[in-house]
C-alpha cells in the first residue's frame, strides 16, 4: 500500500489508471488516484541492487 504524501489517501499501484493518461504507462511515476499527486516509481538502480543482494544471499545460503 502506498500512502499519498499530499492527501493521505492509501492506494495500491494500479497501471489501469495510467491508460487514460496522456503520459502513458512508461512515465515512471505513480499517481495518487484521489488527488493526482505523483510519486516517483521504484528506482531501477535500487531494484537491481536489491536483486544482486538477493542473489548473493541465496548463494551464501547454498554454500
Amino acid at each position: 500500500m502506498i500512502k499519498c504524501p499530499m492527501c493521505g489517501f492509501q492506494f495500491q499501484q494500479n497501471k489501469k489508471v495510467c491508460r487514460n493518461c496522456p503520459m502513458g504507462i512508461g512515465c515512471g511515476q505513480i499517481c495518487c488516484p484521489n488527488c493526482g499527486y505523483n510519486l516517483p516509481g521504484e528506482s531501477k538502480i535500487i531494484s537491481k541492487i536489491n536483486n544482486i543482494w538477493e542473489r548473493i544471499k541465496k548463494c551464501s545460503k547454498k554454500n
Partner: protein
Amino acid sequence: MNIKENKIVLVGNPNVGKSVIFGLLTGKYVTVSNYPGTTVEVTKGYAVLENKKCIIFDSPGINSFIPQSEDEKVTRDILLNQKIDKIIQVADAKNITRTLLIALQLAEIGLPFVLDLNMIDEAREKRINIDEKELSKKLGIPIVSTIATQNQGIAELKETLKNLKRPDYHIKYDSLIEEALLRVEKFLPESQINKRALSLMLLAGDLSLKSWLKENLSQEKLKFLEEVQEDLAEKYIEPLAYIINEQRLKETENLIKSCVKTEKIILKNWVYYLGRISMDRFWGIPILIIVLFLMYKFVGEFAAGAGVNFVENTVFGKYLNPWAIKIVNFLIPIPLIKELFVGEYGIFTMAITYALAIVMPIVTAFFLFFGILEDSGYLPRLAIMANRFCKIMGLNGKAVLPLVLGLGCDTMATITARILETKKEKIIVTLLLALGIPCSAQLGVILAMLAKLSFSATLLWVGIVLAVILLVGYLASKVLPGKGGDFILEIPPLRIPKLSNILIKTLARLEWYLKEAVPLFILGTLLLFVLDKIKMLKVIEKMASPLVVGFLGLPSRASESFIIGFLRRDYGAAGLYALADKGLMNHTQIVVSLVTITLFVPCIAQFFVSIKERGLKTALLISFVTFFLAFLIGGLVNFILHYLGIIL
C-alpha cells in the same frame, strides 16, 4: 436452477480491493470490454448465488456519483442503464469518511445494497473501531467486514446478498434544495435510480445526465428542469455541487461521531507543536519563509555554488571534457562529426555538460530538499498555506493542488487539473502553470542564478513573479462562475524524515528526470548545431535582436537559450546560467532574463499534454499568451530599471 440472471455490481472508491472481491465471487471466467462509447474497461464475470446465475460487474473506482471523470460516468451509467438488482459497496475500512460519502449516495439511489468494509484488519491495526451494528441500524443496510486478500468474510458477504432490501435513508438538505427537489422529481422519468437521487445529480449540475434526459424527456420539461437548477444556483455563492457535498459531508461526520471511534495516541512534543503552528494563519507564514530560505541556501548557494563548481569545472572541465575531446579526435576523422560531439554545440560539450554538470547537481539538491518536505509531512501544510494565497486571487480549494504540484513537474500538474470541476478552472490553472509556476529543475537553476545576485535583486524577482501570478489569477478568477469545491486533505502529523526514504525517492526522481530531460537536451543541442551549420543561428539572433537585445537588453546569445527553452524551460535557464557564469550578463540582465525565462512556455511535453487535455486551440492560445507576457514583462522590467537608473 432458476434461469433468470441477477445483476450485481461492485461499487467503491479506487483501490479498495474491488477486483480481489470480484475475483473471489466469480472465479476465473471473466470478460473485459470497453463500456459502450468509452475507453473505460468494465470487467464482467459470472457466479452462482442463491441457486441463481448472477452477472457481476466490476465497476471503475469512483469518489462521487456526480461524475467528474469518464470512469465515474461509466459507474453511474451502469446503475442507470443496466437494470442492476443488487450492489456491493466495497470500501476501505480505514478511509471511513470517503466510504460513507459513497454509502450515503447509494442509499439515495435506492437500489438494494450491502456495505463491505474491506481491509478491516488494517483499520483495526490503526485503532479505528467501527460499530457495525449501530452503523447498519442507522443506514438501514447490512454491513459485512472482509479481508479480501485472506478470503475472510466472503462467505458472509455471499449470505448477506440473499436478503437485501432497498435502503430507506434520506439526508435532509436545506429547505431551498428540498423545495427544488420536490419540483424536479415530478418531471423526471422512471429509471433504476431513485428520482430524488437523480434530481440531486441534476441540481448539482451533472452535465453528463443531459444526453439521457434528452432521450427520455420533452424539450419543454427539459427547459423547466434547467430553469429550476439555474434559479437554485443563483441563490448560493458556491456551486450547488459543493453545497450538496458539504451537507453530505456533515451527515457523514455525524455518522462517524456516533459509530466510529478512533484511538489516537498523540505525543505532544515539539514536533507536534511545530506541525500545528506551521498551518497557523499567522505563524505559518514565517515558517514558510524559513523553509523557502533554507531551500534557497541549500539549492541556490550550496548546490549551485560548490556543487556545480566542482562538477562543471573539475569533473567535466579538467577530466571528462578533455578526455571526450581526445577520444573523439582519435576515433573520428571527419571534422563535422567531431564538432557534433565535442564542438561549441556538441552533444557532449553542451547537452551532456549542461544536463549533468549544471542542472543535475542543482536538481539533486532540490529533490533532496523536496524529499525532506514530503517525508516530514510538510507538503499538505504547504497546500493549506497556498490555499490562503490563492483565495486572494479568488481561486479556491482544488485549484491549489495542481499549482503546488507544478513546483515538481508542470506536465504532470497539467494532468492533475482534471480534478477541477469546470472547464474554465482547468484552463486558468493550465495557464497559471504554464506562465508562472517553475518546475523543480527550472526552480533549481533559478535559485542558482539568484544566488549570484544581491538580496534586493532576489526580492525583485520574487515580487515580479508573484505579482504576475496574482494579477493573472485575479483577472482569470473574474471570469469564473463561483468557487471550486474544497479538497479533502488528511493532515498527517509532522515527523522527523527518514534518511533512507529521502535517498531512495531522490534517486528515483533523478532517474526519471534524466530519462525525460537528457533526450530533449540532446535534441535542443542538435537543433542549435544544425542552425549554426546552415548559418541560420546568426540570422535568428539578428532577427531576434530588436526583441532580445533592444527590448530585453540581453546579449544576443541569449536568443539561443530562448530557442532551447521551447523544448525545456530548465534547459533555457541552464543556457542563461552559463552566460551569467561566464560574466556575459550584469545583475540587471540576470534579473530580466530570469523573469522572462520563469514566465516562458514550460516545455514541449507540457505543450503536448495541454493539447491532449485542453485541445489544440486552447493549448496554442495559452502558449501564445505565455510567450507574449514573458517577453512583455521582461522588457518592462528592463525599461523601468534603466529609466529609474536602478543598479542591482
